[in-house]
């Protein structure tokens, strides 16, 4: 152990009370920092998770970002001629060449894609009718890109593959129509077809509107009901790393030409709100540590004042100014290190405690735990900031100590 560190430790050990008080400041600062940060980041992640989980990471739809250019307009770009009353061709809408496009997308690493056909139908049961969104999907693929399987409270997605006339509905719709597993209801499509479908699954997402208006059937069934054989109009893509969505979406759009929207693009406003919220949170919790740093400043300043004679004798003995500075900087570092270590422990304890808290948000049916984020970077930020504050607080008294002129002190004593 260096002599400077030895002296620093001795100073602190012999001033137990003030050492303890400044330690408590840092410990509480770090612990609160962690608790608040883990809650805020936890709720942020919880929010993003819901956002990411319940919506596709990337949706490729059968639309273009810009309308197709008319042949006449591309022939004469400066256009003296304006063609009016152009009526688009009556075509079967959908993603063209979707088999090849799907093959291309699936060739990209780290993603899973599911083709779907989405359309509107009318449900009728016991004289009641309701318009709903019908999604035709391949169960095996759908499971990989959607959490719908986890949200099923009865039945399974695979039942759609087993039973071509099966349908999965939300709990809201089931309640409204007094339906249960095995009930048969009529589905009427805009093309005029009517089919009797049997309920093979009921899901609950917690989103009332979704639970009332979304239904799932097998892709083939949807294609025949909507009279769009072999067509799909939406590709749902789920990524291993949701944060690469923007790049991957751009890549897909560039290759396929169809509009590819990432979840980040779809919720850009929310993401910027979360960023601002984090900035505010970190400023506030950092302020706690700055206050704690004053405790350290106070302790070390007091030691420097009390120990002026010791400093004078050390310097007369041959200690350099920087040796003396190091003694007091070391005191700051020791306080910062011990304070951070204990603060991290207390903080983790607080986080565990907060994680146990169950609350029932207004309008919710179930108790939820407070979302706690356990990411390691928070510990680094908290400990790093505490250490920097402690060193900053120690620096001023340490510099003053280094400037002590032994002769001035000795003369005063003589």
């Amino acid at each position, binding site marked *: 152990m260096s*002599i400077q560190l030895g002296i620093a430790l001795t100073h602190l050990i*012999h001033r137990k009370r003030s050492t303890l008080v400044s330690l408590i400041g840092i410990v509480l600062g770090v612990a609160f920092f962690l608790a608040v940060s883990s809650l805020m980041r936890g709720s942020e992640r919880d929010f993003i998770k819901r956002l990411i989980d319940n919506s596709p990471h990337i949706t490729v739809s059968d639309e273009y970002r810009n309308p197709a250019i008319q042949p006449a307009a591309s022939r004469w770009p400066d256009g003296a001629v304006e063609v009016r009353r152009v009526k688009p061709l009556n075509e079967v809408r959908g993603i063209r060449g979707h088999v090849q496009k799907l093959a291309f997308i699936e060739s990209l690493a780290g993603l899973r894609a599911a083709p779907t056909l989405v359309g509107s139908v009318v449900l009728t049961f016991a004289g009641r009718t309701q318009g709903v969104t019908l999604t035709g999907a391949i169960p095996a693929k759908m499971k990989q890109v959607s959490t719908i399987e986890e949200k099923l409270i009865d039945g399974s997605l695979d039942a759609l593959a087993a039973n071509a006339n099966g349908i999965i509905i939300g709990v809201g719709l089931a309640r409204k129509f007094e339906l249960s597993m095995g009930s048969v209801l009529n589905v009427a499509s805009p093309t005029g077809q009517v089919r009797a479908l049997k309920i093979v699954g009921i899901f609950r997402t917690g989103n009332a509107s979704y639970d009332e208006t979304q239904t799932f059937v097998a892709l083939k069934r949807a294609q025949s009901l909507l009279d769009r054989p072999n067509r799909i109009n939406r590709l749902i893509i789920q990524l291993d790393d949701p944060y690469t969505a923007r790049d991957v979406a751009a890549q897909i759009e560039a290759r396929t030409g169809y509009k590819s929207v990432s979840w980040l693009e779809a919720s850009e406003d929310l993401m910027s709100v979360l960023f601002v919220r984090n900035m505010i949170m970190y400023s506030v919790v950092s302020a706690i540590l700055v206050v704690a740093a004053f405790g350290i400043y106070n302790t070390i300043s007091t030691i420097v004042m009390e120990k002026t004679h010791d400093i004078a004798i050390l310097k*007369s003995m*041959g*200690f350099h100014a*920087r040796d003396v500075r190091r003694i007091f900087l070391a005191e700051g570092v020791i306080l910062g290190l011990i304070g951070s270590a204990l603060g991290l422990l207390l903080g983790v304890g607080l986080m565990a405690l907060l994680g146990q808290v169950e609350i029932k948000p207004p309008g919710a049916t179930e108790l939820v735990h407070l979302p706690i984020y356990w990411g390691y970077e928070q510990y680094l930020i908290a400990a790093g900031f505490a250490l920097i504050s402690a060193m900053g607080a120690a620096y001023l008294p340490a510099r003053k100590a280094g400037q002590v002129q032994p*002769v001035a002190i*000795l*003369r005063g*004593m003589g």
Partner: protein
Amino acid sequence: MSAILLAEQVGRVLPGEVPVTLVQDVTLAVEHGEFVAIMGPSGSGKSSLLYLLGLLDTPTSGRILLDGQDTSGFGEDELATTRLEKLGFVFQFHFLLAEFSVLDNVLLPMRRLAVLAENVARQRAEHLLDQLGLREHWHKRPHQISGGQRQRAAIARALANDPLIILADEPTGNLDTRAGANVRQILHDLTREFGKTVITVTHDLTFAKAADRQIGIVDGLIDPKWRM
């Protein structure tokens, strides 16, 4: 014998609105193994001279050569290193660090110099304390021993790095007669038996008489006619 410490026309003026002259035009050569007493009335500048000779303070004029080396161009760090390696100080007050044991206090300069291994340094510190009659007090803290013992511990600390010169500023000034006599004897023995050079500022006539040479300082100047 060669001059181990040489002061050439050394002066020290405290700057300020009214500059104060502490020491002026002091030329002095101290031989190796010499025992020099600096005497003079209070406020005559003898302590200031000792601080200059001990490289604690830097002269505003003239120069000081220690062991043949001109120290006038030295920065603060070089001066500190020179003090650490070549000089030892004993003050009127013992200035031992209160939180450290007597042994640790003696070890401080050796640990800072870091030439000796810890166990060798420890042996040396124990040996020094033993020689100064503090064998049973190694592990006591300064407040647990008497004033005379503390001053002897301070002498042991001054000797820790085997300095060329011991500079003492009224080392007996704060001690009772018996303890003072003891400290006097030790410093005297250092020059006679161990060949150390000792420069001491003192009011103590008995002490000064034992010295090889007495230098009188009046108003910051060496007074050639000064007699005890």
